[in-house]
C-alpha cells in the first residue's frame, strides 16, 4: 500500500501521461494538415506509447490499493511554426515528463517506498530513450534544412513506424 501522497503524485503523473496523448495527437494532426503523413504517423504511434505509459500507471495504482481520479485536461497547443518548432516542443515536453518522474522517484526514496521506486525504474529508462529519439530526429531535421528530397525520405521513414508494446 503506497502512501496517500505517493498515490496523489502517481495519479497526477497518470493524468500527465493522458495530456501527453492529447499533445501528440494534436501534433499528428498538425503534421497531416501540412501533408506530412509520415510525421503524423510518428506522432500517432507516440500517442499510443503514452497511452501505454498511462495504463501501466493505472494498473500499478490499483495494485497498491489506490484509486485513479481523472482530472480535467489542459488544451494542448494546436499550431506550430514548423517541424523544428514541433520537435523542440516535443523535447521540452519529454524533459518536463522526465523531471516529474524524477520527483516521483525522490518521493518514493524519501518514503522508503521501494516497490514504487522499482516500478518507476522502467519509466526512467523509457524517458532516456524518448529524449534521445527526439534529439536525434531534431538533429536530422536541422541537417536536412530546406532540402525537400531529404524531407520526403525522412517522412517516408517515419511513416514506417509501428507501435509495439515495450517490454515491461
Amino acid at each position, binding site marked *: 500500500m503506497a502512501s496517500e501522497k505517493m498515490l496523489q503524485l502517481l495519479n*497526477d503523473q497518470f493524468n*500527465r501521461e493522458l*495530456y501527453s496523448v492529447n*499533445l501528440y495527437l494534436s501534433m499528428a494532426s498538425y503534421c497531416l494538415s501540412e501533408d506530412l503523413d509520415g510525421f503524423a504517423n510518428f506522432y500517432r504511434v507516440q500517442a499510443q506509447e503514452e497511452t501505454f505509459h498511462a495504463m501501466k500507471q493505472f494498473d500499478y495504482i490499483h495494485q497498491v490499493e489506490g484509486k485513479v481520479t481523472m*482530472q480535467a*485536461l*489542459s488544451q*494542448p*497547443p494546436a499550431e506550430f511554426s514548423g517541424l523544428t518548432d514541433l520537435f*523542440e*516542443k*516535443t*523535447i*521540452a*515536453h519529454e*524533459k*518536463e515528463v522526465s523531471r*516529474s518522474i524524477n520527483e516521483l522517484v525522490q518521493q518514493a526514496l524519501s518514503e522508503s517506498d521501494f516497490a514504487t521506486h522499482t516500478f518507476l525504474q522502467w519509466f526512467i529508462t523509457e524517458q532516456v530513450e524518448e529524449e534521445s529519439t527526439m534529439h536525434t530526429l531534431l538533429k536530422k531535421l536541422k541537417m536536412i534544412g530546406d532540402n525537400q528530397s531529404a524531407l520526403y525520405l525522412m517522412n517516408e521513414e517515419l511513416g514506417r513506424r509501428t507501435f509495439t508494446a515495450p517490454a515491461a
Partner: protein
Amino acid sequence: MFQAGDIVRELHGTGSGTVTRILPGNRVAVLMDGWEMDYALAELVLVNRVAPNKATELPSAPESLGLSEELCLGFSQAPNSEHCDLFVFNNTANSVFIHLLIQPGTPDGRSVFRDLIKPAEKKRIHNFLPPVQGTGEAWCFQVVVLSNGKEEAIPPFQITKRFRPKDYNKYNLPGGEVLWYAMLEPPVIAPVSEQPPQELVTLRPSQVVDLHHDQIIDAATLAIMREEDILRQQVEHFKQQLDRAVVAGMDQITFIHGIGNGTLQQRILDFIHENPYQPTSLTAQPANERIYGQGAVVILIG
C-alpha cells in the same frame, strides 16, 4: 588581479557575479544573485573586464529626451555591434545608489552594475549584451536614495522594467548609434528624520522575485505545459526563493505573483499561514501598490 565591476565566475562552481570590493588578504567581495560574498582570488576566474568609467565622455542628454527631472536608464547600440552600453542619468536632487540586476530570481540572473550616482551625474557602463526585444527579459533596478551623503532609513526602492519596445523610447544619436531609454519613477523621499540616520550596514538585502511563468520557465517548455504543472513550478520556485531568504537572514522578500484567478496568491498565503519555519515568523502583506499594483506580496521574516 580583479577590479570592481569585473564579471567573474566560480572556478569550481557555476555561480557568477560582479566584483564589488577588493578586500585585504587577496580576497574580493562578489555580488552574486543579489548576495555579496567573500571569495579568495584563486577561487574565481575573470569572465569580462568592465571598461573604465568614461562618464566624462558621455554627451549631454538632448533636451528633447525630457530627462530634466527624472532618473533615467537607457542603453545604446552602435550599428553592427552585438553589445550595447548602459546609461544611467540621475537628474534628481538626490544621490542614488543603483543596483542593476538582469533576470533576477532566475538561473540566468546576474548582477551587472552597483554604484553611487550623484545628482546631475551620468554614467556609462560599457560592453553589455543587450536584452532581446520581445523576450520579456527583466531588467531589475534596485535604487537606494541617499540624501546629504547619508542613507535615509527607508527600504531599498526597487523597480522591475522589462524590455518591451513599447516601454522604451528610441532616440537616434549622431553616428548611427541608437539610444533606447526609459524613465524610472522618481524615488519617494522619506522626510528627514530627527533621529541619527541608520548606518548603511543596517540595511539588510532585500529581494524581488517575479513569479510570472515566463520568468521561470523557458518559452518552449511553457508552450506545452499543463496549467497545473505551471502552477506547481511557480509554487516550487516561490518556496525555494523564500527558503534562501530565510536561511540568509533577510528581513523581507517581495514576490510578484501577478493578477490572475488568485490561485498562486492563495497558495503563497496558505504556505505562509502553515509556516514550516517556526519559530521564525512569516507575515504576508500587500507590496507597494504604486510600484506593483495589486500583483505582489511582501513576506516579512521575523
